């Protein structure tokens, strides 16, 4: 049984699915016999987390795991609790350990042909982006985006908000908001290109420099959503959690070369309130959760 924090996504042919919505019988992406495969979920249920977990941070993403749940590394599977113990306790205030790199499915160019096109998946993507950016202040509502130096937010207004002329209110601390509700009835019928869809996802982040964005570590829902869609679209990216001893910010960088062996950046004790127990129908398969290959 795999037990992970609830704020995570699995990948299905129709798009990333939040674990809250994953269900028995759903086919999700996994590594099986050394190859990508779709494996059915046998059981998926949320439970109150009854023990401290482990948060693993890598350049492909982060995930909270139960100590007894394993991840796939270049030297085999290893339990999250063991990763925590492998941290070098003598290097105080530093995040060092004798960790083997985590294995990931290749991010580039290996998108299964049976998966939906971006045009088919766009309504789902748009809904999830709106939900991740939504801020409700009683009667008022808005969509939080990162302040951007270029006109990328106009595309966001057109494609996600559904109103090209939607008013953008600038705030402080690198944020801006599109005020008011999105308007599904006016959303363009056609779908954007993959590049435009990715651009819309990254508008939820704060621009740092060309192809580099940042989010406070607290914005876990936006981070998990972005990673899930980039994985699903086979777009290479790299996440840098800083500082490693206890990340405060997550930086994402695009235009990087795809890698399948990813060094561990941080292993931290964490206390998820809700965990999801995931049982797969096939034995000896490693489902991809938040980009990380998990194992029983």
């Amino acid at each position: 049984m795999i037990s992970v924090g609830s704020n995570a996504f699995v990948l299905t042919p129709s798009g990333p699915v939040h674990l809250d919505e994953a269900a028995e019988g759903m086919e999700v992406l996994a590594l099986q016999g050394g190859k990508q495969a779709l494996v059915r979920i046998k059981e998926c249920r949320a439970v109150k987390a009854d023990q401290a977990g482990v948060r693993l941070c890598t350049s492909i993403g982060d995930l909270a795991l139960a100590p007894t749940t394993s991840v796939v590394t270049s030297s085999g599977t290893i339990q999250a609790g063991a990763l925590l113990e492998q941290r070098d306790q003598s290097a105080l205030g530093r995040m060092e350990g004798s960790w083997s790199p985590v294995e990931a499915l290749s991010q580039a160019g290996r998108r299964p042909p049976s998966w939906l096109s971006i045009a088919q998946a766009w309504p789902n993507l748009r809904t999830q982006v709106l939900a991740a950016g939504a801020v409700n202040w009683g009667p008022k509502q808005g969509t939080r985006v990162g302040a951007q130096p270029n006109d990328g937010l106009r595309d966001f207004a057109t494609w996600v908000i559904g109103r090209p002329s939607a008013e953008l209110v600038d705030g402080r601390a690198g944020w801006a908001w599109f005020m008011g509700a999105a308007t599904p009835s006016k959303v363009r019928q056609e779908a954007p290109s993959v590049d435009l869809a990715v651009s819309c996802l990254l508008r939820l982040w704060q621009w740092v420099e060309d192809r580099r964005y940042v989010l406070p570590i607290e914005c876990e829902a936006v981070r998990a959503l972005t990673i899930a869609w980039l994985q699903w679209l086979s777009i290479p990216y790299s996440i840098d959690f800083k500082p490693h001893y206890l990340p405060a910010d997550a930086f994402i960088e695009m235009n990087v070369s795809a890698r399948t062996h990813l060094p561990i950046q941080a292993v931290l004790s964490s206390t998820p309130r809700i965990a999801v127990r995931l049982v797969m129908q096939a034995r000896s398969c490693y489902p991809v959760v938040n980009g990380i290959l998990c194992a029983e």
Partner: protein
Amino acid sequence: MKVPKGARWPVANNRVDSRLKAALPVKRKIGMYVAIGESDESFDEFLDQVARAGAHVLEEPPRLLTAPHLQNAIALKMDHCSTASKPLIEGLIQELLTRGLFKRFATFSRSDRPYNVITLPAILGLVQEAVAVTLRRLEEAGEVTAAVAARAVPKEIAITPLNVELILGHLVRLGLATTDHPLGTPIQRITVPA
């Protein structure tokens, strides 16, 4: 072995002379420094003392301090903390954050920059309660002043105006509110974007 004066706690290797280096055989990394000490136990004791002094500084009254402020306050609380040991406190604070014995809280400064403050786990619980209460007020009224927040949040947090300002700054930092305070002045009001 006789301990040279000022060497009760481990010291930063680059802050002491060669005579002292020779007397301190155990080497470890602490934060950005290579530290040397008498024994493995001396490092453990140093970490323990920093944790105790930090708890004392942060709990009475409940405070949230930046890492440099906490570092200075801890150094003042500790006996025999030489100028060669003091730089190591920063790395030990980082270690205590990693272990969850100290907690971090993100906020926004008067000079328009995000920054983090440090507190104790028990105080962070109160801080999170204060954040939730302030956010509810913001949803109801469209704005929250520091005075309103001070009355709404747990009294342990409202004990200093700076604590309340940090709560307001947290909501700005996460994009849940905005503010119109002039640069360099305290955050006195947060609002829903208009």
